[in-house]
């Protein structure tokens, strides 16, 4: 009995080591749920949740484009910019590196609905050009990153920046909380798909959220700081 336990403990420690070793370079994209990870039913479900927002966003984009055709070009360029940002390595406060998402800034500039269209296109590009995420899981990923993130960023910014001198703080919290909410939603998505044997969905959520907190919380802080830096410099121009 004791022997078996030691072996199991050894395996567990090795597993964690391997996990940390492999996971570090991936941190930035750890929140993209990979292709095939969600069961078919849940994939479909998240597509169904995501699509209404996407269509609303699309309608808004089309309305603006009808008035100003050049807006299409601007949006395309902005989408490419967001994609390139997400491919950058920025240092995270823990010393590992991660990738900025730019969702916060985008939502503040274009509004959350337009950002949901742009964000989903960026995710499609990340899937097709970088192999991050997947096609069946695109609905789930887009919901957490291109819908919830932007809405949170926009709401927080509106709320905080309204107060006097709160603009910088607003930007910081918008960007950081957009990241955090994305990670929480992803954890919920995973928890729903894989409830724990004891404790069910809640326990599973705590487990998934706990794992990703290691990488995502520092990342969110880095992103918040970076967005404020960028905003300040942009103001100087």
């Amino acid at each position: 009995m004791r022997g078996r336990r030691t072996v199991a403990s050894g395996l567990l420690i090795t597993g964690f080591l391997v996990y940390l070793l492999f996971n570090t370079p991936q941190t930035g994209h750890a929140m993209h749920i990979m292709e095939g990870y969600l069961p078919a039913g849940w994939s479909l479900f998240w597509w169904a949740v995501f699509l209404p927002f996407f269509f609303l966003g699309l309608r808004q984009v089309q309305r603006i484009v009808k008035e100003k055709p050049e807006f299409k070009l601007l949006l395309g360029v902005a989408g490419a910019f967001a994609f390139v940002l997400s491919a950058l390595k920025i240092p995270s406060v823990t010393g590992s590196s991660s990738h900025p998402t730019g969702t916060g800034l985008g939502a503040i500039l274009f509004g959350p609905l337009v950002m949901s269209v742009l964000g989903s296109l960026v995710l499609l590009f990340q899937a097709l050009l970088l192999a991050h995420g997947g096609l069946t899981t695109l609905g789930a990923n887009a919901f957490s990153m291109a819908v919830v993130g932007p809405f949170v960023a926009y709401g927080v910014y509106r709320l905080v920046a309204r107060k006097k001198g709160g603009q910088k703080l607003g930007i910081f919290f918008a960007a950081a909380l957009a990241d955090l909410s994305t990670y929480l939603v992803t954890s919920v998505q995973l928890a729903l798909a894989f409830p724990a044997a004891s404790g069910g969905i809640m326990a599973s959520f705590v487990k998934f959220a706990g794992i990703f907190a290691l990488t995502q919380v520092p990342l969110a802080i880095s992103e918040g700081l970076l967005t404020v830096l960028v905003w300040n410099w942009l103001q100087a121009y």
Partner: protein
Amino acid sequence: MIGRIDSLAYENRLKRLPPEQKLLFSLAMLLLALISHPLVQGILFVWMSVWIVVYARTPWRIYFVVVAASVAFLLAGSPALLLEASRLAEWTRDDNAIASWQLGSWVVYVTAEGLSRAMSLAARSLAALSCFSFILFTVPFAEVLQVFRRIGIPSILTDLMMIMYRFVFVLLETAEQIWTAQKARGGHRGTAGTLKDAGRLIVQLFIRTMARYRQMYISMTARGFTDDFRVLVHASHMRSKRYEWEAVAGCLLLAMLEWWMGG
């Protein structure tokens, strides 16, 4: 990795096959991968890998990197799937635990169900990944776009994708150049320094992006831009009996195997 997948897709040996066929094939396989048994998923993974590495001649190293990245994701999630926890008081041995550890008043344990669930999740994910990778490595983005246009995706989306695809590479080059220039001038020192430099890069990139947008708007106007980005759908593809035969036969065999296993 950026640009790598794009150029491999452009150079792959199955480039001449009609993109619709390849997309349909891989999507059908993807669907099967999501709903089938681990055995079928295993065969599927091997078979799709053969398509990718042998038929399309994707360098196996690159394919391996993509697979390894996904394995890393699987590993990252595995503690949450495998480890269960309950209070020592409420814990009973007959929970099918195959391993357990006591941490204070809590017990952390792994169940047989948990293990088999993690295994079947890994099988499904890898099978699905191989189908997804087949699209990545054999259908160039420009052709995905053409298919989107042909099947009636709204032009606003295809236009946006076309502009994005063009600019992604222009801006990537710019970002790389700025990054290199910062390095050449002794930048990127320490975490704070690097974060600052990243901020500078983003600002520069943003300014240059806006300048590019303005220039592009003028030059598009010069080329008669009104409100659409219509372009000619140009494609020279050749069907291949041999590949069509293998794809269809394989599909049928796998579907039958799945049915026979009681899918």
